[in-house]
């Protein structure tokens, strides 16, 4: 079988392709727009390679099937979009509490409630602050292109297994639906590390394994939580990832993730043509938040502008990282709209007062926070 060096691939399919390359052979999911092609792709692809795709009766069931498959030792995936991810929160908390590795894709759409099926980033808080009950953290990755989706999916499975913790990969309707060229690397399939803790039948082990998130004695549960805290601190130290774009001499630092980061880069290119020294920090890990990069930038930049497809959520983490050293501005389009380059340029003009060529936009568009 010959492979083309590059193929055009849809973002949603790339989530599936990345999972397959990561060695994932089990996916449990419930249909929801705008991530449907992901399920279509894996329902076709997984059986071809000895894998399993199960359409669950709900997102609640899907995440608990993931719980079971992860307990059995598999690299396992589920995928959904915002309302479905809300339904999974109980299960994600149990997965974190049972120390199980898994990967969850959220192709975010406009909310709250049924909202719409347009691109949005309003699930940032839910993803990075622990959407379910209890003290837990999940690693959150935010690719910004179709090739990077594949890369992030492979990383997601590796991080999940390394830390025995759920990893969420977030996209949005734009990223899911867009097509970009992807390099085909034949034979690149990872396998999961050994999982001696898995409940896969006692076999030759001296004793049965138990997977549980129950610690009925408060002192035991506190110890478990403190052990988690040690691991979370290790992740915070070691796993921050971001892309720094034209940042070295930047006076104005735009912070944006996913699709919006592409807009931010275009704004920076235009601003620099107009004489404004601007740069971008693009968080790739939303949790752990790349606070080291933001802190370094805060030492030399004049101000920050956070751009999101929400009412302003990541901006709080930027402000926590900047610690009041510099002004942090916000511009967002919530509810399913993508900020345009022109809108953000106008915001740059408004906060710097020096952007020739930017046009005024009606005050009603966008949110200034």
């Amino acid at each position: 079988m010959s492979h083309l060096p590059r193929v055009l691939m849809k973002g949603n399919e790339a989530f599936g392709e990345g999972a397959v390359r990561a060695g994932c052979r089990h996916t449990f999911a419930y249909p929801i727009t705008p991530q449907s092609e992901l399920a279509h792709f894996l329902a076709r692809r997984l059986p071809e390679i000895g894998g399993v795709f199960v359409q669950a009766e709900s997102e609640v069931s899907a995440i608990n099937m993931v719980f079971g498959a992860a307990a059995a030792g598999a690299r396992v995936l589920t995928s959904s979009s915002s309302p479905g991810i809300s339904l999974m929160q109980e299960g994600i908390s149990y997965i974190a509490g049972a120390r199980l590795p898994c990967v969850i894709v959220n192709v975010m759409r406009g909310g709250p409630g049924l909202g719409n099926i347009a691109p949005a980033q309003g699930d940032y808080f839910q993803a990075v602050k622990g959407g379910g009950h209890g003290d837990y953290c999940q690693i959150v990755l935010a690719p910004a292109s179709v090739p990077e989706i594949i890369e992030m999916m492979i990383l997601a499975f590796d991080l999940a297994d390394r830390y025995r913790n759920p990893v969420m990969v977030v996209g949005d309707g734009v990223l899911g639906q867009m097509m970009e060229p992807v390099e085909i690397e034949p034979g690149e399939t990872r396998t999961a590390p050994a999982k001696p803790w898995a409940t896969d039948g006692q076999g030759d082990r001296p004793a049965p394994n138990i997977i549980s998130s129950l610690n009925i004695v408060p002192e035991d549960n506190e110890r478990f939580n403190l052990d988690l805290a040690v691991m979370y601190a290790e992740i915070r130290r070691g796993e921050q990832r971001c892309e720094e774009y034209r940042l070295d001499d930047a006076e104005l630092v735009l912070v944006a993730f996913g699709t919006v980061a592409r807009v931010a880069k275009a704004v920076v290119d235009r601003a620099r043509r107009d004489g404004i020294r601007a740069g971008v920090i693009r968080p790739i890990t939303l949790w752990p938040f790349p606070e080291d990069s933001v802190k370094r930038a805060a030492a030399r930049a004049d101000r920050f502008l956070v751009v999101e497809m929400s009412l302003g959520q990541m901006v709080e983490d930027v402000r926590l990282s900047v610690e009041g050293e510099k002004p942090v501005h916000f511009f967002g389009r919530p509810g399913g709209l993508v900020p345009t380059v022109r809108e953000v340029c106008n915001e740059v003009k408004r906060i710097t007062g020096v952007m020739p060529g930017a046009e005024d936009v009606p005050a009603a568009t966008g949110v200034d926070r």
Partner: protein
Amino acid sequence: MPKTFQRPQALTDKPFHYCPGCTHGIIHRLVAEAVDQLAVRKKTVGVCPVGCAVFAYDYFNCDMIQAAHGRAPAVATGVKRVLPDRVVFTYQGDGDLAAIGTAEIVHAAARGEKITTIFVNNAIYGMTGGQMAPTTLLGQKTTTTPHGRDRETAGSPLRVAEMLSTIDGAVYVSRVSVHSPRHVRLAGRAIKKAFEVQLSGQGFSVVEVLSTCPTNWGLSPREALKWLGENMVPVFPLGEFRTPSAEEAIEC
């Protein structure tokens, strides 16, 4: 002198925490005996519920998973789809299976998941303090139906075995009881048969086991067994509701 009766290998040595007179211990033993008789302990994965049997992982001497409330059939589905040659069972109470987990049990059956469910029906929520269950009898007093379950406001008991028996993927569906030594013996046979159906790869199998809750029923252990036989069995008739076509029916 040869031993004629001993603890099943599929049970650990840990003493049960269940209330005096509770029949969970008997049912645990029946499940463990079936696992022993079929010699599958080392390839068995059990999934326990939220409820009185939440600590079942301490008692069953095989790999065990503790699932979220009602989600055991979904968890078991995940295990079985990864490891199709293992024996996978869920052990669930009536609140877990017949209320919050109704969707999970119905669809595990509909998919014909090759798992076995032991459904313990004692007509009440035990662990949380004796509230009304979906299987609470009409007129039965509970902490949330202090004047007795009223059909008008609280509906009527859910007959799970009958409901699941309408589903093609549910290959073996039976209801048994443990209120007398004879019934305990028949229940053991049904549970073993359910595991055999799983091993044969034909589909989903479930045994509903009528059980007591002396503590929350406000009865002595002996009175509770009598109450079960006199009040629950007429509402929840015993028997096999669905068997594999080639199988001969057994008494329940």
